[in-house]
């Protein structure tokens, strides 16, 4: 078959791939093509080594320890906090709270801030493209406290339709929670514009950065949001780590959510007072090794800069979308213009069910995801029960997109 000409790549993916040992693996007898990056990304050797190094040389419980290992462990752990604080736009380190991931970060806000600040008749505004992590906690809160939910709609290309924003973000709106980049449609949302409107009615704004932080430069101050949540494992970091950034005044006014060791100031038989930020929100022994190793993921991304990572992905996405559309039987959801979207490409293949397709692609070594991608209401809105999603990262090449396209052609014949 006719090979498409490889487009100029912004990053030298061939070089980059050498840092990711798993990419040399074969699956089902074929070299792995890993296109499930929106679910979780692979890890460079530096991250894997850092986690081992922590256990080989410095492991101890953090904070309060007076011995050398405890000091080293605390330093490694707290160092990542500094890294994040500067990485998301130069915020104060005390405003960065470690969590297991985006989900726990949003749950923290929903339980602690939401529980106290959202009451009967108040409105919570979301978008129609939220991941369950930024949807179910708010449904539960609305149910518990008697609030109402409203959704900013999407247009036919899966972009946020802001024409009705002013009537949806009403004066009784207390919170607007919005994903900065959709994990299904790839859409990059005008979070700053939404935040401005939300603030004009006095609402607090949370941005779900699970998909944006890994793939584009993020500055929470420029975005103008109040809370920002993201996960380490989707940006070359270890599983089991994530972070919540929040504005100091909000965090300081909030009651802690999880309680226990390390987050208290004084405990008596009948009462407790809380430690300063950020410890107030970090109860118990954290994922120390994971947090320590996460900093190497930032180092790795900083080698190129997030502008370059973004440019690389724009080109990769453009190439991949063209390649899939060129097959003639693939329908892509989400924005057509690559400048308006990230590298998560969800699609349908006429006559082939997404789960059969994913199974077939796996037999060709190509890892994609099939399902509702934790966004059931959106999937239904698209008229689907599930879709197939290929999602790229800085190590993905256009040659891999060709492998995907060829396998799709085969699948079409196999099931058609």
């Amino acid at each position, binding site marked *: 078959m006719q090979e498409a000409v490889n487009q100029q790549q912004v990053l030298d993916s061939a070089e980059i791939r050498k840092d990711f040992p798993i990419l040399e693996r074969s699956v*089902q*007898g074929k070299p792995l093509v890993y296109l499930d990056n929106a679910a979780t990304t692979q890890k460079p050797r530096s991250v894997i080594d850092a986690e081992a190094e922590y256990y080989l040389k410095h492991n101890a419980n953090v904070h309060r320890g007076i011995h050398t290992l405890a000091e080293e462990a605390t330093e490694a752990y707290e160092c990542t906090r500094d890294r994040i604080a500067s990485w998301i736009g130069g915020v104060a380190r005390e405003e960065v709270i470690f969590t297991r991931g985006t989900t726990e970060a949003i749950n923290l806000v929903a339980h602690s801030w939401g529980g106290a600040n959202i009451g009967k008749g108040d409105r919570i505004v979301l978008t*129609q493209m939220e991941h369950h992590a930024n949807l179910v906690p708010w*449904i539960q809160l*609305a*149910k518990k406290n*008697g*609030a*109402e*939910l*409203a*959704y900013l*709609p999407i247009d036919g290309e899966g972009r946020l339709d802001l024409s009705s924003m002013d009537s*949806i973000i009403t004066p009784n709106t207390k919170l607007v929670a919005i994903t900065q980049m959709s994990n299904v449609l790839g859409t990059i949302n005008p979070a700053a514009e939404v935040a401005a409107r939300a603030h004009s009615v006095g609402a607090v704004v949370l941005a779900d950065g699970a998909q944006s932080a890994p793939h584009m430069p993020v500055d929470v101050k420029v975005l103008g949001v109040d809370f920002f949540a993201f996960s380490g494992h989707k940006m070359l970091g270890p599983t089991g780590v994530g972070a919540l950034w929040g504005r100091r005044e909000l965090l300081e006014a909030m009651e802690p959510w999880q309680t226990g060791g390390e987050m208290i100031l004084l405990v008596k038989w009948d009462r407790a007072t809380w430690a300063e930020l950020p410890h107030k929100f970090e109860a118990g022994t954290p994922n120390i090794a994971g947090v320590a190793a996460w900093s190497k993921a930032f180092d790795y991304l900083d080698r190129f800069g997030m502008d370059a990572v973004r440019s690389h992905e724009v080109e990769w996405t453009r190439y991949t979308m063209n390649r899939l559309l060129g097959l003639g039987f693939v329908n892509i959801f989400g924005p057509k213009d690559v400048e308006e979207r990230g590298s998560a490409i969800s699609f349908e293949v006429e006559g082939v*069910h*997404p*789960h*059969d397709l994913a*199974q*077939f692609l796996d*037999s*060709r070594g190509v890892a994609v995801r*099939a*399902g*509702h991608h934790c966004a*059931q209401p959106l*999937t*239904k809105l698209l008229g689907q*029960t*599930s879709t197939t999603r290929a999602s790229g990262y800085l190590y993905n090449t256009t040659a891999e997109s060709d492998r995907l396209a060829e396998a799709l052609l*085969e699948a079409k*014949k*196999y*099931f058609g």
Partner: protein
Amino acid sequence: MHNHDHQLDEMYRDIILDHYRSPRGRKDVADPTVVNEGMNPSCGDEIEMKVRLKGDTVEELGVHCAGCAISVASGSMLSEIAEGRTISELKVIAAAVKGMLTTGEVPEEIELDELSDIEVLEGVRQFPVRIKCALLAWVTLVEGLERYEKGGSGENASTTEDANPTVIV
């Protein structure tokens, strides 16, 4: 010619793909005794089944499955062997299919290889995430029949809903 993968072809046997491309039993059933809808929540795929019984025996069965190749083929195969069998015969066969797909054990009295194409579903066993696909039609049938036996209408009771927040979509 494609160079098909062996394990994949074990699941997607030609017979299965044939049932998928041309599903049998995709018909409407007049005056159904049993109507049931089934769903696999993890993928969202749905199946609708209508059965007209005459006494204990299935006189006519129609199945509409909007799902993957495995679920469509499995429903299609079910429709091929259901008519003319009694409720208890079908429950035994459904249990045998489940045994074949999960533990690998099939009761001795059942000869699945005599049951049309059903035996070819065995290849699915190697793909644990897909077993639910092959079982969807069988679970939906048995559920409907059992509700009928318990004296229910045979109609799927709609799920009860408690107070949910006001929503503007």
